[in-house]
Structures are given as C-alpha cells and as structure tokens.
C-alpha cells in the first residue's frame, strides 16, 4: 500500500483540514529541495518521516504526483487567521462538506480539539507512542501524525523496558501512523468546552523566554527597518565598550541595597507587589487565562480605523503605500473633515475657556489633539489635554468626578480613564458612551479636528462614543474659544473617570464662548451627572471675573497638550488616583499623527514637552482650582505626578 505523506504546510495552516497526499513509499521525494519526504519503510513498524519544510512554501508537496488540489490549500489559508471555525466548514474546502453530517462533525471537532495535546497512541503490535497530536486524516481512514513522538512501550519485545531506557532515543520530529496500525489514541485531560473556549493555549509560557518587548509586541507588525549597529567615529571615549556586558557582576560585586543600608541605614522596603498586580493563581486560573486570551484576541482582531492601532494589529489601513514615516508618525494632520459624532458647541467653549485661563488667553493656544489615532491611547490623550484648560465652569465639573478611573490592564477600555473633564463633557460623553465605542474611530477624527483654531463653537471634535469624559472634555476645551484669561492656574482637574456611569445627562447647555460659561451650566450638568463622581474634597470653584478672554490667532492651530507647564502643580496629595491629567498626548506622542501639537503659550516661549513619553501627570484631585487671577506663573515646575503605571493602550476596543 502506498504511504501517505502529509502536506504539513496546509495542515499547519488549518489543522481541521486534513489532507493526505499520496506519496510513493520508500521514496525520496524532493520537490525543489523544499520539501523532502524521507520514508523508511522497513525499519519501523510505523513510519517516520522527516520533513524539511520551509516556511511559506507553496508546497509542491505532491512531488510524487498525488492528487493534491492546490485550490484547497489556498482556501485553507484564509482560515489561518480565523479564530473560530466551524468544524464542518473547515473540512470542506473543496470537499463536499461534511459528508456524514453530524457524526462526522463530532468526530472532526473532537479530533481537532486534540491538536497540540500530548497523546498516547497504541499500535497494532502493542507499541505505544507518546507524542503531540498534530493531524489526522478524517476523510479517509484516520491515519494520524504525531510530533515529537517517542516510544513508550515496545510491542515487539517480550519484557518491559523501563521508560527511561526509551528516552535514550531522541523523539522523532514527525511521526506518521497509518490507519491500519492505529488501534487507539488516548488523550488525557483534554479540555473541551462546546462554547468556543476550548483548547486555548495554556499560557504556560514559563518555559519560554519572554522579554517585555516580545510580550507586548504584536506579531502582526513588521519589525521596522533594519538596524545597523552604530559605529563610533573615533571620538568616543575609550573604555566604555564592555560596560554593559556583564550583567552578572552586579549580583556578585555590588548590592546597592546593602551598601545603602550600611552606609546610611536606609532600609529598603521594596515590595514588588506595590507596583504590580499580583496574579491570583487559584483554581480557576486556567479558565481565567483562557478567557483573557480569548478576549485579547478578539480585541486585537477587531477592525479599526485608527492608523496606529491598525498598524499594531497588522491591518493595512492605508491603501497608498507611499506614506513615509513622517506622515505616519509625526506629521500634524490638517484640520479638515472628519465625521464627528455630535460634539457639542459648548464643549468647545468649555475647552477654550479652559484654555484661556490656563494660558492667559494666548492666541495660539493649541489644544492637544487627542489621540486620534488610537482608540487605545485615546482617553489618556484626552485627559491629558485637559489639564490646563482651566475654565471656571469646567472647574466645577472637574470636581465632579472623583471616580478616578483606575487604569487596569485587561479588559479596560475607555472606562478606566481618569481624566479631568468637565461635567458637561462628561454628560455628553455619557450619552454616547457605550462599551464598545463604535464611534471611536470617529472620535479619532474628531479629535484631530478639535483644534481650537476656530474660535467659534463648532462641534469640532465630536468625540464619538465611548470616549471617556476625559476626552470629551478635551475636545470641548479645544473647541472653546473662550475668553477666559489665561492666568496661570494650577491645574486642578479632578479626573473624571470614564464615566460609563455617566448618565445620559443631557448635553450641557450650549453657551457662548464666554468663560463664564456659567458655572451654572456646569453645575447643571453637574447635577445631572452622577453624584458619585463628585469629589468631596475638591476645592470650590471661584470665578475669576478678570479672566481674559481667549482668542486664537491662527486659524488652524495644531493642538498641543496643554498639560505642559502651564500650571504648576502643587504637591500632589498622595491618594490621587488620578487620571492622567494631561498630556496624554505626550504620552503617546510619537505615535499619533494627530498629536503633535505644540502648545504655544503666550507666556512661554516654547512648547515644553518635557513629559517623558507615557508619563502621565496626575493632578491632584483636590486641586481643582485653577489658579485664578493674575498671578505670575511660577516657573513651570513640573513635578511628575505619581505615575500610575498604566497602559495607555488599554483602551480596549475601539
């Protein structure tokens, strides 16, 4: 009988699609050197095949002319990325579907679940092999393939060898067992759940080397340009070559903690768990992990309109591929059409008002563009842009939320976002908020749009849906051409956490671009927002009648993260779980085209982008008070607020 060789490539691509091709046994099929099948017929009872496969080969596996149908493979490839696949469908590329209907389905399904599992295979002659289940021919007669198979029990021998003796021989990489040798396959502890959770990878990656960058990197993106090592000019001071070469010296020679203690009596109280979340590895860990993985995969597989998110996920958003890095990552997008989802006027006003107060009514106060690009960083961005917009009314609203969104990894979307925001925006946001921000992409655009270049109340950034109040606020502010004078004010925004809770308060009253955006308006919206977002510790807002009004000079101002030094930042009280006040934009800076906003403050010469990327300044909640009145701005003392480690990309679904 002829041996069956497997088209491993297609099988790898779609394990459900088990295709077996005929190959001459004893042969040495060599197809372009790419795919060699060596079959030793006589040496073993079963067959051992060494396959040399190169990735990506379109596989002329059918070297020996077996009836391999190319079309099937191609059909199969499409499935490679699909997360879910109905067993019946998969098997039917080009086949007549599940011929036997249900019974075949069940078989295929169960067999598929076994892939990757360590199984024991009993053979006709009594031998038992243990290996990783790789593929099976469901169509024909159920020959199977194991990977890394090793003999556990040899049927041919009389006595029993101990297992260790068998270990002497390295496992066979690929091991084919034809159907008539196969007696049974035992898979122990197979986890099967019929609702789709099955067989998720045990994220037991402990055996693997995981660096941070490899953990967080998306496997979709290309690795960027090719890096070349730096070659010093010759001016380089000598002796620096091996400074970092020996990481182990540290362990031996220098223990900074010990030295510190001995010299200065300082005891280290470092506890890792203060900074990370301790994983609860309990009984249900595996389920939770699987669930988390599934969710992660779903998120990552979603469509997005955001350039950067798309890039991370591997989608090609831009059809014209001649976009260079500059336009992808650095350029400032012009403020033009976007479809926003109903950003309200007063949002703009608020924002502008804030702007003015903060920046002394500078002409070109630019508002930072919220991270248009990514839904993920979005909120942070928004939040960031808030800060300095001190707006009387806004202020109040700011005090509203003391619901500081915690930035929690996993499963957090906009929710965890703490951003200072006006109540108005919050309420507005609230309306549009939904867990999955379908409008997120809109917001992205709108964000860009929300340049305060326009002194009028335009909708500007219609921060669509799901944004957090933070971003709404930001957008609003951007919009606002408020006439609030730009006085140095301390930023005192209390973060408003993503107020999913934000009730459907009606949109804040539309107001003129007067700073006095009446406290009433904010109050009004305030009251409509949930009480729980009120920060009881917030200082009372005091209207500054002298506030200068803000008039932007240029039409299209790029937006800039306000956060910048406009406010000084009094010592942040400890319990601030704030939401990153501001410069979200900075945090995500390099990545979003929209964000390159420079802030031009009248009082300051240059945009001070001194936020380290990802630093998220947090504004003490209590401080909602922006400094009113004309006070000379203290030197921008930017004290990096207690930085809550959080993932700007945990915006989740976009």
């Amino acid at each position, binding site marked *: 009988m002829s041996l069956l060789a497997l088209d491993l490539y297609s099988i790898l691509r779609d394990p459900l699609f088990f295709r077996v091709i005929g190959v001459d046994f004893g042969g040495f099929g060599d197809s372009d050197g790419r795919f060699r099948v060596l079959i030793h017929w006589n040496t073993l009872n079963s067959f051992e095949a060494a396959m040399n496969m190169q990735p990506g080969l379109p596989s002329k596996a059918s070297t020996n002319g077996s009836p391999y149908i190319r079309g099937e493979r191609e059909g199969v490839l499409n499935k490679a990325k699909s997360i879910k696949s109905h067993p019946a469908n998969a098997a039917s590329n080009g086949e007549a579907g599940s011929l036997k209907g249900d*019974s075949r389905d069940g078989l295929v399904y169960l067999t598929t679940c076994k892939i*990757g599992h360590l199984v024991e295979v009993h053979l006709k002659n009594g031998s038992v092999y243990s290996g990783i289940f790789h593929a099976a021919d469901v169509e024909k007669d*159920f020959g199977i393939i194991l990977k890394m198979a090793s003999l556990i029990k040899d049927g041919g021998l009389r006595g029993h060898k101990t297992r260790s003796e068998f270990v002497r021989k390295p496992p066979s990489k690929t091991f084919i067992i034809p*159907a008539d040798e196969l*007696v049974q396959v035992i898979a122990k502890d197979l986890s099967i759940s019929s609702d789709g959770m099955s067989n*998720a990878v045990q994220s037991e990656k402990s055996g693997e080397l995981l660096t941070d960058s490899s953990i967080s990197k998306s496997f979709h993106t290309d690795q960027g340009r090719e890096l070349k090592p730096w070659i010093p000019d010759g001016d380089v001071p000598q002796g620096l070559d091996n400074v970092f070469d020996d990481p182990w010296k540290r362990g031996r020679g220098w223990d900074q903690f010990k030295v510190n203690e001995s010299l200065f009596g300082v005891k280290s109280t470092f506890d890792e768990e203060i900074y990370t979340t301790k994983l609860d590895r309990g009984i249900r860990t595996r389920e939770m992990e699987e669930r988390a993985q599934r969710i992660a995969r779903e998120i990552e597989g979603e469509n997005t309109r955001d350039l950067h998110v798309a890039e991370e996920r591997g989608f090609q958003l831009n059809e014209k591929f001649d976009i260079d890095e500059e336009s992808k990552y650095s350029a400032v997008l012009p403020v033009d059409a976007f479809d926003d989802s109903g950003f309200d006027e007063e949002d703009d006003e608020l924002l502008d008002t804030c702007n003015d107060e903060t920046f002394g009514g500078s002409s070109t106060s630019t508002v930072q563009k919220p991270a248009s690009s990514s839904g993920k960083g979005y909120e942070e961005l928004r939040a960031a842009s808030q800060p300095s917009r001190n707006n009387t009314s806004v202020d109040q609203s700011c005090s509203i939320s003391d619901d500081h969104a915690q930035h929690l990894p996993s499963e957090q979307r906009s929710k965890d976002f703490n951003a200072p925001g006006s109540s108005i925006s919050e309420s507005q946001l609230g309306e549009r908020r939904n867990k999955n921000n379908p409008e997120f992409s809109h917001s992205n655009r709108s964000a860009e749009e929300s340049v305060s270049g326009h002194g009028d109340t335009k909708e500007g950034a219609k921060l669509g849906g799901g944004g957090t109040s933070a971003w709404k606020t930001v957008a609003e502010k951007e919009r606002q051409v408020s006439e609030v004078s730009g006085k140095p004010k301390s930023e005192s925004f209390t973060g408003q956490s993503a107020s999913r809770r934000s009730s459907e308060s009606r949109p804040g009253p539309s107001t003129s671009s007067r700073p006095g955006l009446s406290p009433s308006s904010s109050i009004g919206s305030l009251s409509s927002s949930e009480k729980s977002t009120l920060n009881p510790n917030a200082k009372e807002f005091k209207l500054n009648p002298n506030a200068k009004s803000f008039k932007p000079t240029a039409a299209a101002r790029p937006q800039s993260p306000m956060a910048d030094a406009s406010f000084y930042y009094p010592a942040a009280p400890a319990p601030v779980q704030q939401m990153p006040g501001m410069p979200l934009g900075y945090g995500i800076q390099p990545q979003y085209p929209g964000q390159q906003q420079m802030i031009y403050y009248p009082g300051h010469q240059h945009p001070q982008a001194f936020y380290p990327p990802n630093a998220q300044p947090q504004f003490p909640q209590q401080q909602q008070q922006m400094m009113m009145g004309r006070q000379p701005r203290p030197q921008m003392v930017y004290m990096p607020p207690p930085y809550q480690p959080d993932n700007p990309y945990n915006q989740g679904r976009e």
Partner: protein
Amino acid sequence: MNPANATATEAGGGDEYEVGKTYEVKLTTGIEFKGIVLAYDSDPHVIIFHEGTSRGNCKSMTTRTVNASFISKANLIGKCKDPLDANKKKCFVDLNGLLEKEAIAIRKIESIGVGVTAEAQKIFDALSKTLHVKWENKDMVIMEDVRICSPYHSDFVTGGTRAANDRIKKVLNNVREKLQLSSDT
C-alpha cells in the same frame, strides 16, 4: 485495509455506535476500558470514547479514539444523553490557540535532553529561563553560539565571542551555585 488480526468489526454492541451509549470495550490488543461514545463515524470507522461511565465534567476528559476495526468486543452497558451537548450548538475551535498550544508543547519536549543526567537537565532549565538554549545531542548550545559540553561547568564553555563566552561562564557558575551543585560533577 484489513488488518490481519481484525476480528469482526461489528462485534458486540451491534451495528451502530450511537453517541451517548456507554460501552465496555475490549480491544484486540487486550486493552479494556469503559467509555461513552462521543463521536462515531463509519467511514474512517473510528469511535471516540469518553473514558469512564459517568458524564462527569465536560471540561476535561480523557478521550480514546479507537479504530473500530480493533474492537473485539463491545458490550453496551448503558446509555446517557448527549455527552457533549455539542451537536445542537455550534462548536468552535480556536485554531490559533491550538497552533500555539502545539508549538509550546513541541518546545517543551525539545527542551528535554536525551540521555542527559537529571542534573544537566536542571542546569538546562535554569539557563533557559533567560537565554535561548537548545540541546544538541548532549551539548547545550546557547544562541547558536556558545556551547557547553558535558559535564557542564565553566571550563567546558566554548565558542562565541569573548564577551559572550565570559558571560555564559558567569551565568553558568551562578546557576550552579543556585542549584548547589558542586562544580566538578
């Protein structure tokens, strides 16, 4: 295909193995077990049993995929409802997850050295936490550069650049210390 020692394929149990039926099965190779039929197909003539007689927990089970040709005897001992509830609902399989699972399993097996001592394996495992190490016969090869031969202490580290070599030596010594192995095993 007619295996030489195949006995009557339909022996016992009758003709149709239905999903849900519980059988006591005896194979021609002498193995016996009891199981509930989870799936059956007469074309490849394979039956998948869920081991054990009670339905139990669906999440994790031991399954036996049996080539029906080798069943010498199958006694019907009971019947229970569809063990998987699967036929009615759509069953989803996470392909990517499976592929990853397989890759990990393979890697795990690959990390076990063949014919090496337990101690060597321990050293290997410790090294592999921070380095890419592979077995090559009985040598450990790190980053395809540096090689550590039996008996795996720092005198036997060869290859690689000077810096890498030194580093591996240090790492190895550290590992040994941690494992509290004497350095001349």
